[in-house]
């Protein structure tokens, strides 16, 4: 005695839905990156040479800049393509997550559709700008 299956709804691909999911998934991705960066840092003997603040800075943004001023004897292993890619990934996730978060907070209080759409455009521009700048910083340092 099974009742007939109803037509299953589509996941409804709109901005709100995608960003909702993205926020959660990017959060998980950031965790992953942080863990990889932390493990990497420890493997690269950060334990003896780094303050906790520097370690955190590295974990959240594995960018050679962030460890340049520490007591690490050999900075070269920290300056690889691998870590640059990780840093860019982190930048991508954190940037999109954070800026959308900002937008999300504002949207909670904005009723007008026009303003909402303009803000979204604005945030997109900021995101692209920040990302470009960020990438420049990462690759040039």
């Amino acid at each position, binding site marked *: 005695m099974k009742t007939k299956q109803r037509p299953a709804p589509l996941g409804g691909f709109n901005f709100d839905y995608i960003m909702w999911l993205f926020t959660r998934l990017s959060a998980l991705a950031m965790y992953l990156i942080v863990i990889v960066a932390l493990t990497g840092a420890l493997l690269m003997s950060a334990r003896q040479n780094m303050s*906790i*603040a520097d370690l955190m800075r590295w974990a959240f943004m594995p960018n050679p800049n962030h460890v340049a001023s520490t007591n690490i004897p050999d900075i070269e292993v920290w300056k690889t393509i691998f870590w640059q890619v990780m840093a860019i990934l982190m930048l991508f996730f954190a940037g999109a997550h954070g800026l959308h*978060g900002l937008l999300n907070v504002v949207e909670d209080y904005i009723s007008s559709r026009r303003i909402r759409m303009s803000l979204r455009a604005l945030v997109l521009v900021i995101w692209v700008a920040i990302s470009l*700048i*960020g990438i420049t910083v990462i690759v040039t340092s």
Partner: protein
Amino acid sequence: MGLKRNVGLMEALRYQGKGPMLTYILHRIGGLSIVIFVGLHILAGYLANHAWGANLGIFINSIYENWLFQVFIFFFALFHAINGLRIVILDLWPKLIEYQREAIWLEWFVFLPIYGIALFVIVRSGLGG
């Protein structure tokens, strides 16, 4: 006739929302402070590399170096990360919401010692010890 719909910030904050409402407020403040700071920091990193903006860049970076600021930002960053994980888990596996009360306990249980240690380290180095 009647009053306008009015929810002032203070009125809202005075609602006796218990544990989860507090985490929401902290999460929100935390998220916002991180984006703003991270944004500035990236800018600073860029500026510091160019002679025309080096001063500003260095100034912003020096805020970060300040231990008082670290006490603040580390609190929110850590809290945002741990609380965010709770939200992600509860959102993606609604069945677990049955344990939401425990989740909040657990969250503080994880957060406090980590932050405690970090606080100790930051303050000690901040006070030049």
